């Protein structure tokens, strides 16, 4: 299959609506090193647009997005 992305920290944000997912990842990303990857799972449909916007504005990179079964998973690389 496709190669798995190595995750350094996971965040379970299921059940949290806006603005909490973005607020929590902005805190969570500070807990990993630059270059490491944060995996965040959310059920908030607004996240689909919000996470890329957040990543663009705060300068981090979304490596991969996965959707399925009502869950959206983001793999975010800390860039700075």
């Amino acid at each position, binding site marked *: 299959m496709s190669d798995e992305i190595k995750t350094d920290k996971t965040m379970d944000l299921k059940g949290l*609506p806006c*603005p909490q997912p*973005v*607020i929590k990842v902005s805190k969570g990303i500070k807990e990993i090193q630059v270059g490491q990857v944060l995996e965040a799972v959310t059920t908030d449909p607004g996240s689909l647009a919000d996470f890329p916007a957040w990543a663009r*504005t705060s300068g981090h990179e979304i490596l991969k997005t996965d959707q399925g079964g009502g869950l959206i998973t983001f793999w975010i690389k800390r860039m700075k």
Partner: protein
Amino acid sequence: MSEVLATRVEEMRRGTTTVDDLARQLADLKRQVENIKPGAEERVSIIVFSGDLDKVLAAFVIATGAVAMGMEAVMFFTFWGTPVLRDAKKSAGGKDLMGKMFGFMLPKGRNALKLSKMNMGGMGTSMMKSLMKKKNVASLDQMLEMAGELGVKIYICEMSMSLMGFKQGEFIDYPDLKYVGVATFLEQAKNSKVQLFI
């Protein structure tokens, strides 16, 4: 400005301008350019004029969202927004009749706010609050806590305070809470990329 430049060039040609002069000119021009650039800073400045639950909630969502995105956020509570920051557990003495009346008629803090529409005698507000709880939407208590953690700056309008007879001692404890006038708000608002009136 082009005349200034022409003069400078003339002076240079005649060898009467020193490097120091040029450095000073450069610094001055830099400062002028900075002042022409409107709304340059990554900051959201919000005037919270309303005291309605829905509007105050929206203000907090925007402020906390902004900080999550790496921006700064400033909230200026004025007029009907002033009572929002009262601490329900505190009270202040030494008020005159008007002050006492305002204190009684205005909501005593964030948990006494009503919806701006469909309040329906309080029913609409209760329904909204239980719906929010059910869907895990952050309450104003949680919003305020997040705001404090994230470093959202909160200013309270001195003028509204004195108009409504409120005293500093009856407001909540919040990191770096300031009591200010409009000039303080405007000084940072004029350079903020986003300015909102809620």
